[in-house]
């Protein structure tokens, strides 16, 4: 923490730490400054310029995400000049892409859409001229429609600075700049690890979940927080469902440690097993050598009978149990309690002794 400085923002006297930006100080004091390219955990680049503010004595409007506060600064976030500049930028972004919200997966969860509405823009003053890129549908996980890309660079920074996978970059600069893997390759033909960080980072509908297409609109999805079932990192995630069906998995940066919103390809794109038709749905009992559907009662009774007989004939240590690193703590606890107290043996282990 640097020293505390006093400044004025929108007529209000506030205090901030001198290593904070104007944007950070504003947020801490409940003053709203819109942003598009700013993304926590990555470098502030000031690329989109919608976070412009007026600073007394500065020659032009400044990008608040990149300007540190200083003592005695007088800042206005809501002047006509600021709004005009923001409108100009947003209208330009709208006009230079194919922002057809009707069929967009991000409709209702789009930062550009929100900003258009917030600024009260009826329609852009420029003619709408999308670049006409082909939509990338060459893999089943991530779909890209760069006609909706606003070149904020969040995906590039998420890939390089958060996951440090170093796959994405800007190809060409300026008016027809483009984001993507090297040599303009599709994700599937690149080094992409399909962590999906760029999907969560994209503020618009340019990078989306391929499998979730037309499976539920953002406001229809129910998000349930849980812990990933794969590796030992134990990432926190939201499983998104629609009418009881799993639609997709998203990271959530509000959940804190251990993963701060990041996930990997397994956590994010390998959830299909849960609702797969091959799941076991009923108990099975071997009859004449063949596993045959049975009721729970039949199964329980058969197990109880057999374990009792084995225990009586050969002693409890002739029975062994394997618990599982896949099951919950509560289940592992009960399992070993069951083996020790109900069966009477310490023959209990699991397969992953790391």
């Amino acid at each position, binding site marked *: 923490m640097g020293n505390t400085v006093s400044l004025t923002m929108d007529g209000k006297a506030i205090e901030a730490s001198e290593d904070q930006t104007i944007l950070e100080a504003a947020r801490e004091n409940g003053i709203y400054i819109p942003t598009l390219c700013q993304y926590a955990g990555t470098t502030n680049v000031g690329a989109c310029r919608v976070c412009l503010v007026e600073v007394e004595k500065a020659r032009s409007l400044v990008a608040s995400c990149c300007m540190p506060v200083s003592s005695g600064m007088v800042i206005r976030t809501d002047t006509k000049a600021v709004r005009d500049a923001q409108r100009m930028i947003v209208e330009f972004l709208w006009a230079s892409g194919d922002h057809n919200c009707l069929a967009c997966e991000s409709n209702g969860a789009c930062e550009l859409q929100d900003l258009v509405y917030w600024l009260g823009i009826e329609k852009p003053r420029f003619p709408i001229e999308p670049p006409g890129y082909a939509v990338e549908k060459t893999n089943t996980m991530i779909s890209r429609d760069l006609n909706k890309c606003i070149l904020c660079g969040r995906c590039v920074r998420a890939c390089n600075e958060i996951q*440090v996978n170093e796959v994405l970059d800007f190809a060409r600069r300026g008016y027809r700049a483009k984001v993507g893997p090297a040599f303009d390759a599709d994700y599937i033909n690149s080094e992409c690890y399909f962590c999906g960080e760029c999907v969560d980072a994209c503020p618009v509908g340019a990078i989306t979940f391929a499998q979730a297409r037309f499976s539920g609109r953002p406001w229809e999805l129910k998000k349930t927080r849980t812990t990933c079932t794969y590796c030992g990192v134990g990432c926190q995630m939201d499983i998104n469902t629609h009418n009881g069906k799993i639609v997709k998995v998203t990271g959530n940066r509000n959940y804190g440690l251990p993963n701060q919103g990041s996930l990997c390809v397994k956590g994010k794109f390998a959830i299909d097993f849960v609702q797969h038709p091959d*799941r076991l749905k009923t108990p099975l009992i071997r009859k004449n050598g063949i596993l045959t559907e049975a009721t729970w009662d039949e199964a329980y009774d058969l197990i109880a009978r057999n374990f009792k007989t084995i225990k009586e004939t050969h002693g409890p240590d002739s029975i062994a149990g394997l618990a599982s690193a896949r099951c919950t703590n509560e289940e592992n606890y009960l399992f070993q309690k069951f083996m020790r107290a109900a069966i009477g043996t310490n023959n209990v282990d699991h397969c*992953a002794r790391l």
Partner: protein
Amino acid sequence: MAGLAAAFGSGAMTNSIAELEHTELILAIGTNTTENHPVASAYVKRAVRSQAAKLIVIDPREITLTRYADLWLRQNPGTDVALINGLMHVIIAENLYDKDYVATRTEGFDDLKKAVKKYTPQEMEKITGVKASDLEAAARMYAKAGRAAILYSMGITQHISGTDNVKSVANLAMLCGNVGIEGGGVNPLRGQNNVQGACDMGALPDVFPAYQKVSNDELREKFARAWNATLPTKPGLTVVEMMHAATEGTIKGMYIMGENPLLSDPDLAHVETALQKLDFLVVQDIFLTETAKRAHVVLPSACFAEKDGTFTNTERRVQRVRTVVSAPGLAKPDWEIIRELANRLGYPMNYTSPAEIMEEIRTLTPSYGGITYERIEKEGIQWPCPDTSHPGTTFMHRDKFTRGLGLFHAIDYRPPAEIPDREYPFLLTTGRVLYHYHTGTMTRLSPGTTERCPESLVEINPEDAKKLGIENGGIVTVTSRRGTVTAKAAVTDRSPRGTIFMNFHFREAAVNLLTNPALDHVAKIPEYKVCAVKVEPA
């Protein structure tokens, strides 16, 4: 687990994942972190790229992490103890160790010093294949860092010398005063989501929850009273011992919950025989796995998204698992099934929710004493957490080790159980790939992970491939003393000469038909990591 427990008094990861981002140096040995623990690897990579931390990678394979490394030591598979002893030799010879720390926090230093005396970098070059100058550079870099974290994973534990490997790693960390400080530590990354929890909960043959020994009368008495039962005194069998006992006919009945030993255990042919000999086998799972197909009774269970509970992650963080959707058909959560079975066996259990089970757990498990569902609703808590006013523990052994003083172990290098010879000239090492998990039963059902990695590959060095007439994408057979599998070759520099790599995710090329069930003598972890094979174009 056993190695760390012997050195520190606790087998758990000493520090936290987030600390990796803010340390001065990370030494990653035997861990393909970017593929097996991708999000943990992001912390490591950020430390390197954004915080200017140093990274030393020790691995025979050219894993992705080597791209971020300041130093990469490519040791011959199975020579880790020799390598680490070599590092300590240099650190001691050059007086770079933390003398205060060694004097006040540890014991056994003199034995260690004697033991590593003969492990000169020049001698070690012959065994490990690592250049003496690289080894010296790594030793200096590690010793001179103010705070350094060691990461390891199955590349260290899945050897016949696994426990020795872990003790060596612990030696190295203590020698430089790196245990008990933020950003330091010895950090095993667990492969499966709840290995830590399964161990904590006593799903082990010799301990109750929180590693309380079943052979200790007082502790056993405590559990007997709480559970209202007479409890067995003799430690039980480990999984590999169970399979032997089943083959010999002394184990007659087995109850397997959510495991698939017919694909995950070493020496599959033997497991198959063992299971066939059983009078009665119950398998409880979410799919009809290879193991379930052999069962007398199969019980359908709810998966993680269909029940409440907790998992404990690799850094000891107890986190909530929540019901997202309903289980298919008649499937039930495992805890409900166990409860019902106990009742039918005449041992009453009346739990109505996992939260209620956790309440019982925390009264009997000192390290979980302060863990309640309410407290971990927003963020998981790291054990030890003895009571509900305790915030949890981000790094362990702060002022003293769990066992009091940290214990150095003088360890001598022993070669792997099976080394290449004329007939089986290659070393096979096994592991995971990013896109799949364990026996593949779950990840292979997703189109994305499958399109990225549709089949098992045998990674082989270009020079070896050329000599054997093997082309990239060509079919090869791999044969060990125990079996043969067939798969596609991937000709790549990632594999060093003389070593091939295969993953264990695909039942079509079940690599565990080849691996060696030789067990580490303490931890009883099979030597998945190295065995001798021959490779031929098919």
